[in-house]
């Protein structure tokens, strides 16, 4: 099958690569770019493990073709930390024990990153609604909410850190 050349920006880096149209964005990120932080869970857009930021919106990368990201800007969990310094969201998950097995964590964090830009000071209910597209099978939701609250507080104290 003929490949299509796509150009996109991933974690600030410009990428130009030929892909088969049927290549899913998550497979492109993991297998072509070796960005394996984005996980594959249910493959049917339910679990949110594959969540990435696409042009400033959270999407499930198992349900987007890489060719559809032509010209787009993608942020994955690997792009959260800058200069070796953890993002406030990552710090929140560390400090509040926001994970057990860690499988859902990259998707949780990249979703939380966007949620806190959409709503910098969310209530607990708004966090739960905003994170409702991400499943955690270790039932760690209490601490995930705390982690997001931790990050919200930190980002509000230092707005430039976003």
């Amino acid at each position: 099958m003929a490949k299509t050349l796509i150009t996109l920006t991933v974690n600030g880096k410009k990428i130009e690569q030929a892909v088969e149209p049927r290549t899913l964005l998550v497979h492109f990120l993991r297998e072509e770019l070796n960005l394996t932080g984005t996980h594959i869970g249910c493959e049917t857009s339910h679990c949110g493990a594959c969540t990435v930021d696409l042009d400033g919106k959270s999407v499930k990368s198992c349900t987007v073709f890489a060719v559809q990201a032509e010209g787009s800007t993608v942020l994955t969990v690997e792009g959260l930390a800058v200069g070796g310094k953890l993002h406030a969201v990552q710090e929140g998950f560390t400090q509040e024990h926001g994970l057990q097995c860690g499988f859902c964590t990259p998707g949780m964090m990249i979703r939380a990153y966007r949620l806190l830009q959409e709503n910098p000071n969310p209530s607990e209910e708004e966090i739960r609604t905003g994170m409702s597209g991400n499943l955690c099978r270790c039932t760690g939701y209490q601490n995930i909410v705390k982690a997001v609250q931790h990050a919200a507080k930190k980002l509000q104290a230092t707005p430039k850190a976003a």
Partner: protein
Amino acid sequence: MIPPAFDYHAPKTLPEAAKLLANYGDAAKIIAGGHSLLPLMKLRLAEPAHLVDLNRVNDLKGIREEGGLICVGAMTAENDIIGSVLLQRKVPLLPEVARQIGDPQVRNRGTIGGDLAHGDPANDHPAAAIALDATFVLYGAKGERTVPAASFYLGIFATALEPGELLKEVRIKPFAAGTGHAYCKLKRKTGDWATAAAAVVLQISGGKASSVRIALTNAGPTPVHAKDAEAALLDKPITEQTIAAAAQAAMKACDPSEDLRGDRAYKVAMAGEMTKRAIRLALSRCN
């Protein structure tokens, strides 16, 4: 899971899209948000040789008021419907429905047009479109035509769309002052389809229902326009008695299939309960 191979087309204009659909005929499938189509492709339940992606057709996006009607482009994402001040003011049923679809990520990709045109009776917008008496604008190589939402659904995954046609926009009359609305949906969890859901649009005049429209989601092979339920309320005061009669009539119109969400009797009962709740909520919003 890797979907089967296909040729990808990303038209930027409506005429380009129509031309592609005309050229490839049955071998082409339209992709909007993709959240119904991609899972079907992964399971090989759909194997289109050509995908026509409408995401770059800007003329299909956006919400505007024109000629006294609210026009919603087919490629308008659910989250843009939720965030639309115009819709919140003039057709608040649409954001209420959109908020109950999928989850935040799904609502960023999923579109009203995809939800409406897929023909899945489990989708939420069709019942709302029928309750709103919306008009669908269909676009093809031969030009445009309009179809009322209530005539669009022919069977499971079967719609009035002819080969080569696409859904361009949805036109809805803005709510008259005092119109009440509700979409009540029973689902097992976030992201699930409805076990049953009911959309109600209601107007009261002189203590009686002067206008009422009721439609149900996932209660049969197509969205169900519950006309007998409407008749049970029209020109009558809305009381627990008339609400119960409307719910009974709605349940009679249901023909759901059994699945993991429940057997037929349970689903019919829930369609009745959602009808009751939606009428009560719509009534509380009439003022």
